């Protein structure tokens, strides 16, 4: 287990309820890993076990090569289940208090406030912050130790579109700086654009772990032509029947996109009018719903 995060058979039971069931999860060094799952799937419970906040019923966790726990989180920063700060303290004083627990120098506080664009409002009391500012302060706290590994649990939760865009840019920047980021999110688009790899959890089980592209599967070529039956017959001859599927008023061809021009030429030469020909990728949401049992409310 040399990876920044590795779990083996990680399980958490609450009585008869199995919240997390034998999760084997691996986050590789330097990647941004997206952790997806419907509400109640076990994402936050898994992240809490990874950080040592709750004890696994069974299984093992390694964070930066060590079991999580006291004194073992030196290289880890985390924002779990929303920001939690002292409302009567300013943003800066909240960070000062947290810095004292780990002996982080005061200069680092100003640096992280700048990183999350909160320096101007750092003297305001936390209770006066908007949700977006609270989330950004949470990320600032996670960055205090200049961690190798950043664990962010739904950091865009509750943000407006502008706030979400800012947060995504920030996470992308942090990932590009060489940090390993473990990000749970309820937004598939976000994961798609930010993450190198994703893990999908459903009913406590990790049902998929791969790159976004692998998760989607191979791309296909979609053709809309007239007459469609004649076009289908021609491409079956060219590609083999097993690569051709009539679907939604068109043809779905299991070939790579670089063969599209050749297919177009053959169809036109065969006297068939082609009105649409394009590369087609499976929608990530469709894949996600398929993996998690068709629940639309992702979270």
């Amino acid at each position, binding site marked *: 287990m040399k990876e920044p995060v590795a779990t083996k058979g990680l399980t958490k039971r609450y009585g008869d309820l199995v919240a997390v069931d034998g999760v084997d999860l691996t986050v590789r060094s330097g990647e941004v890993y997206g952790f997806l799952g419907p509400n109640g799937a076990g994402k936050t419970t898994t992240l*809490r076990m990874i*950080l*040592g*906040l*709750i*004890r696994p019923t069974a299984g093992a966790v390694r964070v930066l090569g060590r079991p999580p*726990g*006291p*004194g*073992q*989180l*030196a290289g*880890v*920063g*985390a924002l*779990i*289940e*929303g*920001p*939690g*700060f*002292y*409302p*009567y*303290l300013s943003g800066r*004083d909240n960070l*000062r*208090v*947290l810095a*004292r*627990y*780990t*002996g982080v120098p005061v200069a680092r506080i100003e640096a992280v406030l700048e990183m999350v664009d909160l320096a101007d409002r750092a003297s305001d009391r936390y209770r006066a912050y908007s949700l977006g500012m609270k989330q950004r302060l*949470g990320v600032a*706290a*996670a960055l*205090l*130790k200049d961690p190798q590994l950043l*664990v962010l649990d739904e950091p865009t939760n509750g943000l407006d579109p502008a706030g979400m865009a800012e947060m995504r840019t920030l996470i992308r920047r942090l990932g590009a700086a060489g940090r390993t980021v473990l990000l749970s999110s309820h937004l598939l688009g976000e994961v798609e654009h930010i993450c190198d790899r994703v893990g999908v959890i459903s009913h406590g089980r990790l049902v998929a772990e791969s790159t976004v592209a692998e998760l989607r599967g191979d791309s296909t070529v979609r053709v809309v032509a007239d007459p469609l039956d004649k076009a289908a017959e021609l491409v079956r001859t060219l590609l083999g029947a097993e690569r051709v599927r009539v679907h939604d008023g068109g043809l779905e061809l299991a070939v790579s996109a670089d063969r599209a021009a050749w297919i177009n030429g053959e169809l036109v030469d065969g006297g068939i009018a082609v009105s649409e020909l394009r590369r087609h990728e499976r929608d990530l949401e469709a894949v996600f719903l398929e993996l998690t049992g068709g629940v639309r409310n992702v979270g």
Partner: protein
Amino acid sequence: MWGSFQAELTKVVKRPASWLLLALALSLMLIFAYLVRYASYAGGTGGVNTAGGLAVMLPDRLVGNSIGGLPVFLGALVLIHGVLVAGGEYGWGTWKTVLVQGPSRLTVYGAKLLALAVANVALMLAMFGVGAVASATIAAAENQPLAWPSIGDLAIGFGAGWLIASMWTGLGVLLAVLLRGVALPIGLGLVWMLAVQNLLASIAAPLLDVVATAQKGLPGPNAGSLTAALGSATTTPGVERIVGSGQAAIVVAVYLVAFAALGGVLLRRRDVV
């Protein structure tokens, strides 16, 4: 540990509720130990609470007057402080924020208890200070000599007051950790201190020997016995000589250690949710 202690002390010092509770404690002590008694004495309306007349308000009674409220009403305030300091972390979701920074649960817990212990030293200093000013003012107004308790008596009284305050604070912390919050621990703590203790002492103990015997092992009656032995007026609620001062001090200290240890065990073993 030093950094965690600094962090916890900063939170206590910067928290408005800490200052509000201190102001309340000082006000209650000033009003009931001095102002009401003096108004009664000056107005010639002496009753049971002014037994002893002017003498009970003079500087030589400083120790008893400063710690007399701790068995019940001032104890309730420091219990609330203990609950707020530990229970607030649950309400604001800050346990996780603190613990993912890396310190162990017991380090943070120990730092919390240490910060509360320091806060109780500050409370006792303030109580003795305000009491000294009030008693000196009354002595001057009544042309009485300024006869202060000896340094030894002051030290013993200060230590006893701190011990009782810390015991109640420890109970507050334990309740907060046990019930993971603020409201219910404060409610239960106050019910115990203000209602159950009184009911046991005034109704059950005189009727049942078993309760009267059990009283000798409970925290409130021992705190009351300790303050009574150090000169607090037995007309003050909760102040009563039920056991000797030595036993009382030991029992209060044992409760302090037990509350602190039990809270630590619970916090260490349970999940942070």
